């Protein structure tokens, strides 16, 4: 598949947190379950845990409350405390697709002692377009992703 820049869809978000980079990296990778929008899971049972294996080539997967594991992708680059690259291989139909590679790069930069800026870039979202028909159904349903995100903002706030 082409990686032509004109059709590349990328998002970039940043957030600043009151932790040193080491702890921010650790929190982001070891406790993803605690900040991941829990409705955004692909297993048959509810989301119990999100696991990022701490090494290059490690797995990125969810574990349901029934114990079943579903792959989300893998670790392309494990470089604590400054940089993490995950491959998100969940297609628009919310199934793991080994052929699909979208890239989530997260960098952790010390802004001042005890404060870290995260930069998250999710690249090649256009590759999900292969299954856009299914995706449309997921997103447009009232219980779909967009609806649950609105609820989560309330919960967190």
């Amino acid at each position, binding site marked *: 598949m082409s990686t032509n*820049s*004109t059709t590349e*869809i990328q998002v970039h*978000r940043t957030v600043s947190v009151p932790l040193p980079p080491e702890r921010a990296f650790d929190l982001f990778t070891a406790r993803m379950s605690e900040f991941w929008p829990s409705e955004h899971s692909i297993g048959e049972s509810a989301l119990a845990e999100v696991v990022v294996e701490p090494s290059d080539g490690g797995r990125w997967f969810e574990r349901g409350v029934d114990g079943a594991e579903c792959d989300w992708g893998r670790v392309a680059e494990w470089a604590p405390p400054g940089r993490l690259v995950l491959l998100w291989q969940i297609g628009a139909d919310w199934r793991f697709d080994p052929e699909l590679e979208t890239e989530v790069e997260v960098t952790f930069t010390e802004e001042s002692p005890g404060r870290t800026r995260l930069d998250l870039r999710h690249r090649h*979202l*256009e590759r999900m377009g292969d*299954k856009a028909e299914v995706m449309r159904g997921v997103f447009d349903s009232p219980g779909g992703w967009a609806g649950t*995100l609105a609820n989560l903002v309330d919960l967190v706030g």
Partner: protein
Amino acid sequence: MSTSAATVLDALGDGHRRSIMEHLAEGPLAVGVLADRLPISRPAVSQHLRVLKEAELVVESAAGTRRFYRVNPAGLAAVREYFDRFWSTTLDNFAALAETESTRSTS
């Protein structure tokens, strides 16, 4: 997801349409030139261009009797905005957790 974001992903969910986008990325082209460069008929190219135009991924202009097509970079904005919101929420959740952690460690 907004309808326009889904429309954009639908439009890009076809290999020939992605090829058209790649050819147009090099500059504006007429339908006939695109058809010469792609392994599909001219009517098929026109059909794909219509879908891309509806998704606002390409824009059309006329020069004399010929019609040219070029990429509209703003067309991808809807999809980008959707994922932008998703990551914004996730990182806000993360920041809230980090705040709690930092309070815990200093108290």
